[in-house]
């Protein structure tokens, strides 16, 4: 397989670039470009028809120099060890750039959850935990929800862990339902974190917060960002939104609340009263102060990057810009808040859940929002400072901040 078609090879290449700029010594590079611990195991899953299917499962604890690992558990038919390694590496860098005292982890099961009944899902969740329980813990490794693992799945895992441990252990799993110690503020955390970054970018760059903004993608993150942008920035005019059905545009503004209602009632943004149609491509090229790509990967490429006219591009989706486009945007002065930073709000609330669980004391929604604001603001500012100092794109600056913090922790521990 070509190196760059493998997610972990991509993660390693990104690390190598940052390590090269930072001039990390060879031993440090070797340590940080590989996971510290990997678990590969099987789960015999009893199916409803009485037969047994053996599932292949994984957990990677990428690096715990800065604190216990935390990261998702994915249930996906396409899950591979390399995907898990890559996601664990990215979690490590993300927690470091956010300056959160956690390391990165990730795990998964190669399965198609769409084919599993509810009872089978519960048995799979408990089976995964029975194998991994001895390697997990609030101070070792904290699993969190990811693709196809819902708060209910996290609840089953937490219950299985506590059954094995024999005592209450609310901080061992993140993303639990609030009734079992889940944190307030999880639902809109990704969007909220992105909007906090945008607010900081507007302040730093002198961009008018009352200007126009557009949102590509109107799922959970897109809907929340449409609602939160005016609330957090104290202004802003939503002029365009799109989803898979197409887009809607009104230069005088779209009412975010009414648009969310329309989407939930009709299943699409198209046909929203008082709007005109716009394609996804045209939306990306609108002259707006802030563009939120919140839909899918690689929508900004070298073929359209020179037509992006937004002042700030806040990447709520994973990987909406290609590396070539990222360079072009940087050269043209479009301020990119990379996905790495922009969509990290959910992770931070996962961390808050661990903190609250350890203390068995749960915060109000207001405290969660204030703490999230502080973390995102500090993270944005530290990345921005390096971006200016070294004249590198924001994405690379974020990697530099993250890798240098990891290297510092490793050094202080005397590992290298």
């Amino acid at each position, binding site marked *: 397989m070509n190196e760059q078609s493998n997610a972990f090879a991509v993660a390693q290449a990104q690390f190598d670039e940052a390590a090269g700029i930072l001039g990390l010594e060879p031993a440090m590079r070797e340590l940080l470009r590989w996971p510290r611990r990997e678990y590969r195991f099987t789960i015999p899953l009893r199916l409803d028809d009485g037969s047994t299917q053996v599932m292949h499962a994984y957990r990677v604890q990428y690096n715990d120099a800065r604190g216990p690992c935390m990261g998702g558990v994915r249930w996906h038919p396409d899950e591979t060890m390399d995907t898990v390694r890559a996601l664990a590496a990215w979690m490590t860098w993300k927690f470091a750039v956010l300056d959160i005292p956690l390391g990165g982890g990730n795990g998964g099961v190669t399965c198609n959850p769409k084919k599993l009944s509810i009872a089978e899902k519960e048995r799979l969740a408990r089976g995964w935990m029975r194998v991994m329980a001895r390697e997990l813990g609030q101070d070792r490794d904290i699993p969190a929800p990811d693709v196809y693992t819902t708060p209910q799945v996290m609840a089953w895992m937490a219950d299985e862990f506590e059954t094995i441990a024999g005592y209450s252990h609310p901080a061992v799993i993140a993303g639990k339902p609030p009734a079992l110690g889940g944190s307030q503020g999880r639902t809109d955390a990704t969007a909220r974190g992105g909007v906090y970054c945008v607010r900081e970018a507007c302040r730093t760059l002198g961009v008018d917060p009352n200007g126009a903004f557009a949102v590509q993608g109107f799922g959970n993150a897109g809907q929340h960002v449409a609602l939160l942008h005016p609330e957090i920035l104290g202004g802003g005019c939503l002029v365009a939104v799109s989803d*898979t059905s197409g887009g809607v545009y009104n230069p005088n503004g779209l009412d975010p*609340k009414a648009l969310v209602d329309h989407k939930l009632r009709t299943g699409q943004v198209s046909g929203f009263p008082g709007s005109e149609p716009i394609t996804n491509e045209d939306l990306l090229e609108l002259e707006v102060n802030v563009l939120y790509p919140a839909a899918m990967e690689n929508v900004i490429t070298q073929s359209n990057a020179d037509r992006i006219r937004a002042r700030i591009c806040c990447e709520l989706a994973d990987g909406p810009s290609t590396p070539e486009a990222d360079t072009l945007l940087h050269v043209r002065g479009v301020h990119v808040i990379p996905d790495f930073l922009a969509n990290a709000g959910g992770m931070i609330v996962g961390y808050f859940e661990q903190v609250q669980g350890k203390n068995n004391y749960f915060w109000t929604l207001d405290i969660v929002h204030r703490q999230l604001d502080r973390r995102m603001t500090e993270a944005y500012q530290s990345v921005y400072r390096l971006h200016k100092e070294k004249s590198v794109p924001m994405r690379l600056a974020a990697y530099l901040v993250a890798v240098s913090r990891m290297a510092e922790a490793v050094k202080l521990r005397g590992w290298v």
Partner: protein
Amino acid sequence: MSLQGHSANQATKDVLSSGAADSKALAAITEQWCADIPPGTAAPLKVHYTERPGAAHGRRFYPDVSGWAASHNPYVWSEYIDPSAGVMRLVFGAASKLHARDDYPRLVALNAPNRRPEAYFEEICTHSQRRADFTDVKTGAPETGYVLDLLQERDTHVVELLTSTGDAYHPVTGEPIRALTCEGLLRDTPLVGFTREILRRLADAAGRPVELHFALQLGDRDGAILWTPRELRPAETPPEPHPVQGRILLTSSGFTLGRSRLARFERAVYISPAQYSPLSLSNRYELARLLGRLRRAFGDSPWILIGPGRWGTSSPELGIPVRFAEINGAGILIELAEMHDTLTPEVALGTHFLNDIVSHDILCAAILSGREGHRADGTYFEEMPNELARIMPGMESWASVVRVVEARACGGEAFVVWADAVQRRMICAIEFGRGRG
């Protein structure tokens, strides 16, 4: 009215031969069988003949539920699904939404009614019916309204049978989001067992697979659910032996999803596995976006789409990470289960977007390299003229990966696809005019 044994078989054959219009006779046949079905916990089910099923709710007239059922299920997306148990699709309101491409009827495998192709409630919401058709009582004109609006004027009993809530909440009000799932109807009434049994008996009597349209009136909490048969007809079967002539390009056996058909296409898009394999992750996403632009360039003319690995995967190392909107104009979706010099992935057969595949009536097939009954003539697509640059100027750099092949440019008439849902076989060939091939 009582019909037993031979007379029921003859009556069924009479209905089938009558041009599918004799729903009164069909009601008479099924009424007898209905007595054998155990009642549900929510309401019993009764066969009820009426010329025009439905009721007026304000100015809107519509049946509570319209259904289509088939004795053979062509949508075997899970190993739990027994194709011989049959399938049904349900919509709220008039039957015209049953086969609409722009909405999502509830798809029910009759041996596994609780299995859904979605993994969590937000996905269920995305793939639930949004619009319903009805007749305006005053004007007699067909109209469309939103399901949630129409349900607001219905009593709780109907809402409970047809909708569900889960862990998805309105971002403004925080209220649970309600989706049309028919969960109560499937769980608490005899509908599933009755439909399965009636299809089996009708197919036995007819001596061939059958399809049935019906309507339901849900009544009030204490009343029976009224089941009205609308139309019985033989299931569509492809001509046997297959009439495909010309150069056979693709064959698949045991790995198809979708109804039987014999269809012709002007063009095929072939993604070369050998050229796709070396692409970077970033370029694989870029290719997916390019297919979206190609789909728009093709307009409404359907095509055959052939490519390596799992269509719609979120892991580009295992297939092409398209969104459904980027390929929804394809009539046939072929998955080549081979990845050049790497691994052979498990086939997806469209399950990354099953509801869309069903709504758009797309046939999915997987071709497993080296397996008996499976063949993909990649050389043909690699060697024929590539129309990509003509259709999308500026995209020449993708020409080695994306092959847009038009039948006429290859000296053919059309690409012809024959598929048999029962045998789960598919054959695709380029068809030439008389005297060729």
